């Protein structure tokens, strides 16, 4: 599989930014607390049941019921609630002006990504892979084109739903460079399981380079059998390749598809061989995806298409 050896790239227990880190601390504190309380209650139950029948409790029943059932939970839960409410608010504070603004629109079963300028206008589009600069807050504006999905990169933040007819927001920040895997967390239909994406946290200079590259139209070879196949077999009616074809919205933007690690929203590694598989038998690999399989194309055309796409860095 494409993702072998990726242990920990999609884990809430390996936080890589302040947002996920704050939740991680709550997790640790609550887990320890829960284990201690669990052990105490269970010991009490076992003692009460298996003690020598003549050993009666020294505490009154009222103290037991009121103390254990009312006072103790009220004290512990009030403290926990205060922490939780404060943290809930803190995690939702809108970031400052230096924040990177990215719009993600979910589709069955892929992610349409747009980088926004300061006026909220899209500067360019990409799909299924999101680069962010290390150390800067990022605000995601989230929506859906069909059913409800949920945006979740556990190493960086908690999740928020993406709802048709509504706009939701998520703030996060990465403190160390790396690859972080995200996945749709709201059941969204047949291929909910294969709706992943990648967040690539880059140091500021590399991020600037990446941004510069993505903004450019495709540097596609002009005389290429694959380019002609792309135009001739209708690929361009769903996929945009800026500089090659008109804007199309139904499928992922492929202008710089070769710069991405995966294809099919985390389904396959992005290699020419896998691209052939994806184009020719995608419906077998990911049944329920919108794109039909192009198995009727001959091997040469498929390989040319894959080669062409692999040039789009």
């Amino acid at each position, binding site marked *: *599989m494409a*993702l*072998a050896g*990726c242990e920990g790239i*999609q*884990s*809430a227990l390996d936080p890589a930014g302040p947002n996920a880190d704050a*939740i991680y601390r*709550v*997790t640790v504190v*609550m*887990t320890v607390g*829960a284990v201690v*309380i*669990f052990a105490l209650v*269970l010991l*009490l*139950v*076992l*003692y*009460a*049941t*298996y003690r020598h*029948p003549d050993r009666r*409790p020294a505490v009154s*029943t009222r103290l*037991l*019921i009121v103390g*254990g*059932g009312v006072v*103790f*939970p009220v004290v512990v839960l009030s403290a*926990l*609630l205060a922490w*939780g*409410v404060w*943290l*809930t608010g803190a*995690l939702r504070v809108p970031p400052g002006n230096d924040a990177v603004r990215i719009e993600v629109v979910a589709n*069955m079963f892929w992610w349409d990504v747009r980088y926004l300028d300061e006026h909220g206008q899209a500067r360019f589009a990409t799909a299924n892979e999101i680069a962010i600069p290390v150390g800067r807050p990022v605000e995601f504006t989230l929506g859906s084109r*069909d*059913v*409800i999905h949920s945006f979740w990169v556990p190493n960086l933040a*908690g*999740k*928020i*739903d993406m*709802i*048709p007819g*509504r706009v939701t*927001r998520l703030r996060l920040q990465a403190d160390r460079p790396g690859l972080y*895997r995200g996945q749709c*967390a*709201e*059941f969204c239909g*047949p291929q*909910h*399981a*294969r709706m992943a994406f990648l967040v690539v946290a880059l140091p500021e200079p590399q991020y600037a380079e990446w941004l510069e590259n993505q903004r450019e139209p495709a540097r596609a070879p002009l005389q290429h059998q694959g380019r002609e196949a792309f135009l001739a077999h209708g690929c361009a009616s769903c996929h945009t390749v800026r500089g090659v074809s008109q804007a199309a919205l139904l499928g992922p933007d492929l202008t710089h598809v070769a710069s991405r690690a995966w294809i099919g929203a985390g389904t396959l590694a992005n290699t020419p061989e896998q691209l052939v598989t994806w184009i020719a038998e995608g419906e077998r690999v990911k*049944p329920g995806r919108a794109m039909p399989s192009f198995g009727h194309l001959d091997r040469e055309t498929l390989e040319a298409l894959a080669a062409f796409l692999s040039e789009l860095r």
Partner: protein
Amino acid sequence: MRARHEDLEPVWRTPPGIAALTGVNHTTVGLRYVVTGFAFFLIGGVLAMLMRSQLTFAGNTLLDHHQYNAAFTLHGTVMMFFFAVPILLGFSAYLVPKMVGARDLIFPRLSAFGYFCYLFGGLLLMSSVVYGEPPTGGWFMYTPLSSRPFTPDSGPDFWLLGVTFAEISAVAGAVELIATIFKGRVPGMTLARMPLFVWAILVTAFMIVFAFPPLILGSILLEVERAFGLPFYDAARGGDPILWQHLFWLFGHPEVYIIFLPAAGIVSTIIPTFARLPMIGYRWVVVALVATGFLSFGLWVHHMYAVDIPLVSLSFFSAASMAVVIPTGIQVFAWIATLWHGRPEVRAPLVFVMGFFFVFVLGGLTGVMVALVPFDWQAHDTHFVVAHLHYVLFGGMVFPLLAGLYYWLPLVSGKRLSDFGSRLVFWLVFVGFNLTFLPMHLTGLVGMPRRVYTYADGMGWDLLNFISTVGGFLTAAGIGAFLVDLALQGRFSRRARPNPWNAGTLEWAMPSPVPSYNFVSQPRVEDRDPLWRDPELGARQQRAEFYLGHAPVKRREMLVTGALSAEPEQVAILPGNTWVPLFAALFMGVFFVGVLAQVYAIAILGIVLAAGAFLAWAWKTPEGVGGERDMDAGLGARLPLHHTVARSPGWWGTAIVLFADAALYGSLIYAHLFLWTVSPSWPPPGYLDVGFALPAVALAILALSSVAVQWRQYGLAAALAVAAAVLQSYALAASGLAPGSHAYSAVVFMLWTVQAVHIAIAVAMALFTLRRRAAGYDEAQVPAVTRLFWHYMVAQWGAGFAVVHLFPFVAA
């Protein structure tokens, strides 16, 4: 002359053979529920094993995406709607009358009808598998995924119709149980002497009455949207998919406690028995049960923390979610106190209660964790939540259920229990369960979402999933061992003596296996644990020393007592075995199948036939025309028969149904107001220029009909109601109301349609009352029920009118 078994049995028993389908006796119906519920448990378990097998290792291809999605959808649906709730209802139907000293549930035909609705609803749902179109949208059926554009096949229709059909049985069961608990307790059993199991069922039944209607309404709206295109949940036409989530969880969270409270009641019954001590903190536990009932309606949004809810609401629901820990904590510590002060004898049922403590307390603690909003943002929709909910539900329900099955088995079978088999079952299930679900907490935190049919290897999920699958099969082996144990004990065990556990509650005051009429005479009690106070009570009631112990026995008689005082008030003549409930449920089935097939002529035929069955049901009352109006109930009490009393059990039952009805209409009003709050303009420009005058006149006429009914002028009242309905319909039609064009007009259309159905029912009841009078019935019950329903119907449109016509008028 005193009654004996030979006198009572022919009158009360369920006949053998095919005629057993006419049985209405609560012992028969309760056992049917339990057996059917257990069968669904096995079906749900097989689905679980299929899912666990698929997830054993990354990239497994045992199931494809469609099969896996169908498996988890059906697993959740079957376990919640067709196992947990019905089997607990079955337990209650079987036990509550015996525990309160009654001879039967107070509406026997309703129990039989409810059972058939449940069975047919389950068959309807499962038939989707045969037709190859099972629902695949999850047991929560979120819109818009379940709407027609994204799921054009019939899967969601099977789900919506099957579940709604079965929910009729839950509401019917709840009404039945509340009425029986209020009016059927033996003399002396005041509320403060009621067994805790009965308290738990009373609270649960009220929760069903208020919690199921939001889902029924939500399902009706979704089915209407799918079938006729009315856009309640369609964001493009003014609806909102989040409305479904609110309606679903408004039901869904109380549902968790609807499942847990009866189980807690079982624990509160078993612990005192084996601790040889009356329950300590009885009043605390009662308060805790009631508090849980109320609080559970304030928690639903904690299933929606990731939906972008305002901070104030998040904090409120987070606080409420934590507050519900307190009543649960009170119960846990009351159980501990009882064990600690008693002399516990660890027999099989108590072993399962120990398992319950272990699993449920852990589930409660992870529940506190997910109640904390930021943590939930990580854990939500991951395997952590799968682990949490199974700890709560399996721990909070299945362990007490197994404890209860072993505890009450001697009552059903009359056989003694061997401890060895049940302990083996316990250890298999206990170890298997924890092996399955304890690692799953971690699986979720290291990133594995729920409801994925496949996952990539190397994510750190492989070993955890493998362990869970092994544990799953161990649990399944435990359930298999339970069935074997049951069969062996049924075959080889020796006869049990009455009251084998030396329990204190009334169900053990009868011989085992229990007779169909429960009690030869209905005793008077003076204590919470009457058998501990008077161990001879069982023998005495069998010697017919108490109420209604006379012979000859001509009909099914049962004492009706004051809701609070528990003093004898009336004698109810209960109906005997009849085919009517079966046919009423079958005709309802015709309706549901018609809707499913979108052949609406069949649906209408089903409704007409069902209405006929209900009329026959209401007409054919056991007391008949003329005859006596009161009777000697024994111990010097001369009591009126129930049909001569205005506040008869039937009146109480109707009142409880109307609570459910109000919850249904209230949910529709909630939908209207919710869509208003999320909509930029409501009504949208150009809608409902209906004016105020015509609807106001219609309302006034309807109000007048209430006066007419109060004056017993049923014909006049019916005429007025029809006139009001025509006027209001005209007013809406004249405004050009197009239900399919916008969510606003769709909701207004529904508000009026539901009201029109109520008017039709009220008119039918008025004509029925007239016809009864003409046929010579001299009774107080039927007119009282008609008046009650009528006034409710008028009040309901008062609310509907305010929402449809007054609010926009005032807001503008």
